[in-house]
């Protein structure tokens, strides 16, 4: 598998999907067509989780702001991850700026929704 790397734009986050086990989203997410935008990301993740995995996977999510469609996509992603984490060491770091209350709350909500997914709230220093 190859690394998928997307540069950040005004409306989309920087995305790095590295088959060595590091997955990172950073920035804002309110693309014009959210599902089209995330399609290659979902494809990559599905392929990643169905191939031979490294020892562990770390997911760093640092999303400042996202729209409702992105929220749906994150749910779908976390579904995939939660399912994979049954037999694989995987953890998600939800990284937020202490000044960004809504980003922190979003992380708290995801924790509530995914019982068996390791989701850490990480405040940026």
């Amino acid at each position: 598998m190859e690394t998928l790397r997307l540069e950040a734009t005004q409306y989309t986050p920087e995305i790095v999907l590295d088959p060595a086990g590091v997955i990172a989203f950073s920035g804002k997410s309110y693309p014009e067509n959210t599902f089209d935008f995330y399609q290659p990301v979902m494809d990559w993740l599905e392929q990643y989780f169905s191939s031979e995995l490294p020892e562990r996977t770390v997911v760093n999510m640092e999303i400042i702001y996202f729209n409702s469609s992105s929220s749906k996509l994150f749910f779908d992603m976390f579904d995939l991850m939660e399912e994979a984490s049954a037999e694989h060491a995987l953890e998600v770091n939800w990284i937020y700026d202490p000044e960004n209350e809504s980003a922190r709350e979003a992380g708290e909500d995801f924790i509530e929704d995914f019982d068996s997914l390791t989701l850490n709230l990480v405040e940026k220093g």
Partner: protein
Amino acid sequence: MSKSPDDKLIEELEGLRERFNRTTDRIVKDIGRQKKIMERSDKRQRQEYDELQRRFDEIERLNKEIEETQREVVFTMGAIGESRSKETGNHVRRVAEYSKLFALYYGLAEEEAELLKQASPMHDIGKVAIPDSILNKPGRLDEHEREVMNTHAQLGYEMLAYSTRPLLKLAATVAYEHHEKWDGSGYPRGLKGKDIHIGGRITALADVFDALGSERCYKNAWDDARIFELFREEKGKHFDPDLIDIFFQHIDEFLEIRDRLKDDL
């Protein structure tokens, strides 16, 4: 041992039921999520929008603060220049208003006219560097004193010219050129006609109009008839003829400003 057709059918149906249940679970889950997603998204949007609104308000407040501070600094600087020659604060306000009115009727855009309104009160700022003995001398100045006095235009320009701000740049030009005359007989550079910046031409007329109507240490206030006569005489000599025309066409408005901002006695 091969399965009977019934067993096969049962197996197939059970498979279907399992897939149906999975799909149903998934749909139920999605419906539940959809509501959450919308509610949370609405909440985030509200928070973001509130935050933006707060910042916009703050920016607007700061903008007003900057504009008001600028206006006050400008009038204060103007008043400093004028106070050296015993002018009143209202003199600079009147000159400011006359200048804007001239600018608008001359055809300048609202923003340019407003900029001139703010710049023109600073035209005499160079007088801070003129000795009191000359500035407040009763009676006529001798030749040397006149020369010193006349340096205030150049001095004012030098004080303001360092700035790259449009307002102070215009103020520098106005300070430099407000004693130039249409026929080229003014100072410091003897510029002629439209080589004199419109801000300089306007401020010259606005300042003289107000000064003649006010009492000064070396003269009494002129009555209107005498001022108008001088304007007609100096049309195309001291003053831009177009501006003199504007003055007489809209004289009521100029007199209204004079009346509204008259000096407290």
